[in-house]
């Protein structure tokens, strides 16, 4: 048995959803602004439609899947 026998990634790209990042202290957005992270897992927007960029606010669920 390896040290980590159960798959467990720190960064997860959610299908039709955000990027989950575990254990980050800061995230830099496209404009170079550094945002502090205040929770153990944070969701970074991938659809670009969030009202809380760079964070996900679940707006992607309102976008029809092409």
């Amino acid at each position, binding site marked *: 048995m390896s040290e980590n026998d159960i798959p467990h990634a720190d960064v997860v790209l959610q299908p039709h959803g955000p990027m989950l990042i575990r254990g980050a202290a800061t995230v830099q957005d496209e404009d170079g602004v550094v945002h502090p992270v205040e929770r153990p*897992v944070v969701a970074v927007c991938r659809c670009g439609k969030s009202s809380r960029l760079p964070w996900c606010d*679940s707006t992607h669920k309102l976008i029809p899947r092409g």
Partner: protein
Amino acid sequence: MPEPRGPVSEWVVARLASYRPSALPRPPDTPSTLDDEAIALWTLHELSYQGFEDATELAESDPDVSRTRFRLEATLESRLRERWVRVAPTPAEVPEALEQLAAQDAGPSLADHVRRHADADQVLEMLRQRSIYQLKEADPTTWVVPRLPTRAKAALMELQFDEYGNGNPNRLHAHLFARGLDAVGLCADYGAYVDGALPETLELNNALSMFGLNRRLRGAAMGHLAAFEMSSSIPARKIAQGLDRLGLAGPMSAYYDEHVEADAVHEITAAHAICGTLAEDEPDQAAEIMFGAFTCLDLEGRMAGALLDSWRSAA
């Protein structure tokens, strides 16, 4: 303790107030009103949370008290199962089935009303109803931790840690809600508004407590969690907008604001890492997860409908 609403809750309150075995008549075992049974069961469940100043702690394990709780839970559970539009996905299909269920939910929306139309009195009434659960936010779910297999347990703890403020009491969600109540001029004492709680509010709370307290219902508890988180992020944003519109920005608005980003993470964790892995590890829980998720959306819709109806008829 709350004001009784009929014979069952009268018996419960009297029994809890004076602990002397056999000092009181046997509990009534004939069906009463939904309202009476709901407040009675709520009161009995609270013995496992914060208890009551005017109830003895010994009552939690009193046989007559337990028997009454189990009888009321059985009635509630069979009512919830009768309402359930049954779906039974394979374990691998559970996360997507949860997403579909939440996406297709057509129940009445308090958040839409609060965002655009509600007046301040209506918002305060919604907050009083919400306070029955929100002041113990996440607590019933924590009871499920020791009953889960490894992957689901680790994921639930990660989610709950966030609910409890990641170790910082100032960020504990129930505490954020209490600060919000205080800021909008409402009482933040635990259970302060239970006497005004609608039967629908009590039923929603009782289902959550019942799922949390019974190992047998662990799948339903996790399905409930997933549906709750999946129907939280976008509505939380609308409620925060409504609060701002009414000049109630500040700590209560910040509470809902916190849930926009938190629950965008939690809904994925709950559907995939918790419910998905639980169903894989314990395939017989797949249908139970869906039962819990359906029940969450159904009861939230009933509570929203009851509030919206009361405002419509008052208008």
